[in-house]
């Protein structure tokens, strides 16, 4: 599965065994996304807290 990074525009691989809720990162710019849905694939920018 692939996803186009909203930040840098690169297309990066999302592991096939990824789970809903899991955190993945763009392989080019390291921007992080939370998996909202696996099928169809939907990612949303990760909202980070500090703890």
């Amino acid at each position: 599965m692939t996803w186009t990074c909203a930040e840098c525009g690169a297309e990066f691989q999302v592991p096939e065994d990824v789970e809903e809720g899991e955190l993945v990162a763009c392989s080019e710019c390291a921007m992080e996304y939370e998996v909202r849905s696996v099928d169809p694939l939907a990612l949303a920018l990760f909202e980070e807290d500090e703890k």
Partner: protein
Amino acid sequence: VTTRAAVEVALASLLRDFAARYGEDLSRLVVDGDGGGLVVRGTVVVRRQLRALEQVARELMAAQGAAGEGGEVRLEVVVLAELADEDPRADGRRLRHPGAARQDLEPVAVPLWSRRVGGERVSEWLPSDGPARVLHESSERWLVQVPDGTVGWCEREHGLPFLPESGAPPAVRPWPEGRPFALATARRRALFAAAREAARAELPYRLGGRDPATGLDCSAFVQRLLAEQTGEWLPRHTSDQLRIGERVARPKIGAGDLVFARAQHKSWLHVGLALDGESGEARPVAHACRVEGRVLIEPLGRFLERYRFLRAQRVLRPPEAGEGG
């Protein structure tokens, strides 16, 4: 046209956020140039702030691109906490160190804090953590950096941290960010035994705490466990720890992996250490549990009912043949 005014507005917003999050903020950012070649110059305190600044710059350039305009926003920004790792006499931005080369503290914790939106967080520094360094001195407090890289404020009333000689770099080694490294078999066993002992003793949980006697939080728990057996230090905060190592799919979580999660109905992050023993959803996970208020061990499946799975990272690998011990 995007422009210097737009950049200045974005920077002002960012600086307000820094000040709210970190309390007395020291970031100083100015814009130079115009139209096609803007430069943001200045200083931020920690790398997290530089990442936020880079994101703002990317957003501004994307907006420029969408409007059919050229130009770029270039950053010439110094991270104060990193500058301290270099020779502090290198230039005019020398970080201020109080006169005394070393000063012993009473063996008590010194609270470090950073004010955040919606509350205050306290994080302790202990003499056993190694020398802290002073990055900045103000009338009421010190900005200090402890050996694992954590930067925080320390009220003057608590006394000076144990100072390094002439701004020496931290005494501990930060965890390698690349591939997981091998840990000898005996060390792995000792790591898991130490985690089980911490759970047996029901060490207390305390948000921001680093001291096993008075309480520690989830990230301090795994940081200390791993530092004791490897000599390497994970970052202090969960949000930084989850960027260390290699991803592991949930069904393949093994002994020594870090399991990251989020609270079920809140946004705060959590981390536990997977132990040896049962596998799959029954694999034991040791963590300083905010919900139960103590260190405990429970099966991965139960851990991930209590918290939402976020990511698993492999930071250790089994020893190669001949490396065991």
